């Protein structure tokens, strides 16, 4: 088991190192002639107006919120799903109840009109 994680760790390191190395090589190969106009922030060819910190809609946060709750609930079902072949019908119904509660949350969110992209 430790070997599997060792391979995974090596793979993660290399997956980070290989692109990083390529970037460094490209950085050495490429010309460097910066000037003010070239380096200015791109805004469809116009002069940049204001800071990049614009106001965002709360809608993004709301989607993130709903996602978080659903994600956590579903992830908790994975151990059950692994044991699925061993559990009784009662155990299955328990998981279904679990999901039904989740569905209740979805229903509430839907009725409240949260999911409308306004």
């Amino acid at each position: 088991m430790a070997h599997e994680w060792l391979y995974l760790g090596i793979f993660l390191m290399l997956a980070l190192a290989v692109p990083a190395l390529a970037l460094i090589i490209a950085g050495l190969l490429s010309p460097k002639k910066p000037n003010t106009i070239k380096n200015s922030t791109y805004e469809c060819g116009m002069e940049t107006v204001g800071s990049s910190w614009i106001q965002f809609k709360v809608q993004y946060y709301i989607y993130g919120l709903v996602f978080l709750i659903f994600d956590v609930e579903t992830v908790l079902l994975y151990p059950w799903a692994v044991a699925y072949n061993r559990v009784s019908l009662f155990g299955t119904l328990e998981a279904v109840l679990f999901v039904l509660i989740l569905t209740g949350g979805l229903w509430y969110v839907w009725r409240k009109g949260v999911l409308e992209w306004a």
Partner: protein
Amino acid sequence: MIPLSWYLILSGLLFLIGLLAVLIRKNSIGILMGIELILNAANINLLAFWRYLYANSGDHRGQMFVIVVFVVAAAEAAVGLAMIISAYRRKNTIVANEINELKG
């Protein structure tokens, strides 16, 4: 092999850093991150004890606790951040000391 104390020291230090964040940060989101760090420290502790003392006897209480902590962390992040955003919209501040409407 790593002795249990190493994990406990790590989790203790992480807890202290989280506590520090809760106590000194002005920004409420910073405070929330501190709380998440504290919960993470608790998780390390729980899993370390589970692994070292109970794993081989088929006792899953430690893991169940970790699951509950995950759920609590998620719920706390969701509600806490919602409150911060709501306070920001009403009072235009997220400094914890300035949100004091509940004061009598």
